[in-house]
């Protein structure tokens, strides 16, 4: 057993923390909340120069060959600063899958671009029922010579407006099992056959409806096996769940830090409110939850790093992180009193992102269901 980061991982964390403290203060987060793009291209390029996009890619694709746990350590820091932008969409939802399932041509073409910060990617999976279940995938991909023709619509596609490519989960036929005949396509996001409309959300993040109107995709742009897309999607959801947990872990830590600082300085009845047991109980529970999330995330990440992902560990981490993020924000706000309910206070920035974080890679109920299945129920 070893619960510590390596020296390199500690350096990465420190570097990320320093960089983000400078480049992504809360004033920047607020500015980007209102920005049409939703991210800062200069910061994006700087992140690429630091090697963040290609962190886990092998050197031949412009990366540094770091481990999945390294990526978790980095994303914890990004979560702490609630960095706006398409990093999660590009890396967690797409790049890892290209690295795993891409052909040599696909990897050689796409991964170096991503590593350099030149292209932005996202995943289009969810449809009208708002579910991650395979039975709900109806967007059709009809073979047409050397091409497929995609028709249908996807919702809650993050960062679609700035994406260069979209991984689209489509149905290439009806099999007996709902996961049969699912295929993942690499689609040019700028194709005129795509129509993109924003879905306004409370997080101020960028999520879209994407309509595919007879979009032509070459069969060379299938990721993984034709008809074997569910394996790709499952791979993505497992890793994205853990990476989202890492972001949540950092975000929760930030909320605890600001709340405990406030509890020490805010005086009522001639004493800091942090001396009251009722306030202390809340803060102690926050700390316990945060440490729980951290160890659950590291455990699940190590399984992935070692090539033995455990669905139980992943789902336990995501269910717990989603629940705890909500509770920590609510307790943090109520500990602040009215000031915590104001636009100018940073704690609201975190609370407004709670639900989006929960829905990414599966909400609490979905993961409870997976846990139950893993228990043999």
């Amino acid at each position, binding site marked *: 057993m070893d619960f510590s980061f390596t020296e390199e991982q500690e350096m990465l964390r420190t570097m990320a923390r320093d960089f983000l403290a400078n480049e992504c203060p809360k004033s920047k987060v607020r500015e980007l909340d209102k920005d049409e793009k939703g991210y800062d291209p200069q910061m994006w390029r700087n992140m690429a120069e630091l090697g963040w996009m290609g962190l886990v890619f092998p050197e031949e694709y412009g990366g540094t060959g770091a481990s999945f746990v390294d990526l978790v350590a980095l994303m914890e820091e990004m979560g702490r600063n609630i960095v706006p932008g398409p990093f999660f969409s590009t890396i967690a939802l797409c790049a890892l899958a290209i690295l795993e399932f891409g052909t040599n041509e696909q990897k050689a073409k796409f991964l170096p671009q991503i590593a350099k910060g030149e292209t932005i990617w996202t995943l289009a999976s969810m449809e009208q029922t708002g579910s991650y279940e395979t039975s709900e995938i109806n967007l059709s991909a009809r073979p047409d010579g050397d091409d497929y023709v995609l028709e249908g619509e996807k919702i809650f596609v993050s960062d679609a407006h700035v994406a260069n490519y979209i991984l689209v989960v489509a149905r290439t036929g009806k099999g007996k099992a709902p996961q049969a005949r699912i295929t993942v396509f690499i689609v040019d996001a700028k194709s005129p056959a795509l129509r993109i409309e924003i879905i306004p959300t409370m997080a101020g993040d960028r999520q879209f409806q994407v309509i595919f109107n007879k979009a032509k995709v070459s069969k060379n742009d299938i990721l993984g096996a034709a008809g074997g897309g569910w394996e790709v999607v499952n791979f993505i959801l497992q890793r994205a769940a853990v990476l989202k947990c890492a972001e949540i872990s950092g975000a929760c830590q930030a909320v605890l830090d600001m709340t405990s600082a406030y509890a020490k300085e805010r005086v009522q009845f001639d004493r800091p409110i942090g001396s009251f047991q009722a306030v202390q109980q809340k803060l*102690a529970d926050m*700390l316990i939850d945060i440490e729980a999330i951290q160890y659950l995330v590291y455990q699940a990440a190590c399984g992935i790093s070692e090539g033995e992902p455990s669905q139980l560990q992943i789902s336990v981490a995501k269910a717990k992180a989603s629940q705890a993020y909500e509770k920590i924000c609510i307790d943090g706000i109520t500990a602040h009193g009215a000031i915590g309910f104001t636009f100018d206070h940073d704690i609201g920035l975190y609370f407004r992102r709670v639900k989006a974080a929960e829905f990414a890679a599966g909400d609490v109920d979905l993961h409870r269901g997976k846990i139950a299945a893993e228990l043999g129920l």
Partner: protein
Amino acid sequence: MDFKLSEKEKTLIAEIAKFAKKELPEDFVGTHLIDQEYRDFEFEISMSKKLAQNGWLVMSWPKEYGGQGASLTEQTVYEMEISYWGIPGAWMGISGTQWVGPCLMMFGTEEQKNKYLPLIASGERDGVWCTGYSEPNAGSDLANLQTRAVRDGDYYIINGQKVWTSKAQHSRWCWLLVRTDSTVAKKHRGLSLFIVDMKSPGVTVNPILNYYGRHHFNEVFFDNVRVPASNLVGEENRGWYHLMQALAFERRSVAPLAYGSSKRLLENLVKYVKETQRQGESLSQIPAIRHKLAEMAIDVEIVKLFAYQFTWRVSQGAIPAYESSRNKIMGDDVLRRMAISGAEILGVYSQVDPDSKWARLKGTIQGAYLGFPGAMIAAGTAEVERSIIAQFRLGLPKSY
């Protein structure tokens, strides 16, 4: 980061499973069946001896004191498995293997170590200890205790009363915290630790029954009890500080124990819902029940990781402070939620006594349900533990 068990640790798990299947009666359910554990002390101590013979009872102690020099992780795995199988007798009373031994190794004289450690390690009745901390007016505010020890030549004369003393009725020795100086301004400065022979004249043990009628704890009276001065542990008037340093040992086993028993309870509940039908449908297909069991599985994973993380910290040479409180809170919460949700799943059958033909899961859920409030109070209330985290980890001002 590394979360894998070593081959040695995996072997240990398999060996304990083999031991449990061989040595425990076929339908034995120790996990949370408080009834059996406390009614049959002879069986309990017979198991202590067998654990000692297998080299497990004090496995992480040095060989010279009867241990195996095993790692703390192995010790933790052992505790998890003991608790999973519900093997009684692992603690030598309530304190012997857990903190008396480790404290004596830290602060005891050579004479004390040579006399008491092998006794504990043997698994014999003469190695059974109770702990005398709480008093009627010293609970969470432990330093307020009033039992006094006054020097008299080569002896100390002890007078006063302890309460909630677990297993005093079976104990050969008492690990006793008393006041040796009443003149100091700060009350925790005048305290000392003693070893008291429970057979000494003037020691009286009275049972206190808990709310389900079991005799687990006692009140213990000390009426002019003469204790040799050589039974003082560590320095006179430094007892509080010795105690604080020893807390890490006292609470290290909380999370492994909670993990072992909660894992077993969860497995039993999963089996139960798969085998049980209601209105022609397996309970395992009812969403509300799946939801409850999934929540339990989350708790079980967390308490497991807390147990290992704590052990890892100690084996790195750290003296954990708030982590013991964190683990205590989490361990108690896991059992509380599991007892409550488990009782909901069993429905009307959850209220049935273990020996009845109507009992389900051999009454273990009833045992957990009746037992968890007591566990939440023992060795520090949830309220106090949370304040410790707030103060010592988050740096908030004192609340008391």
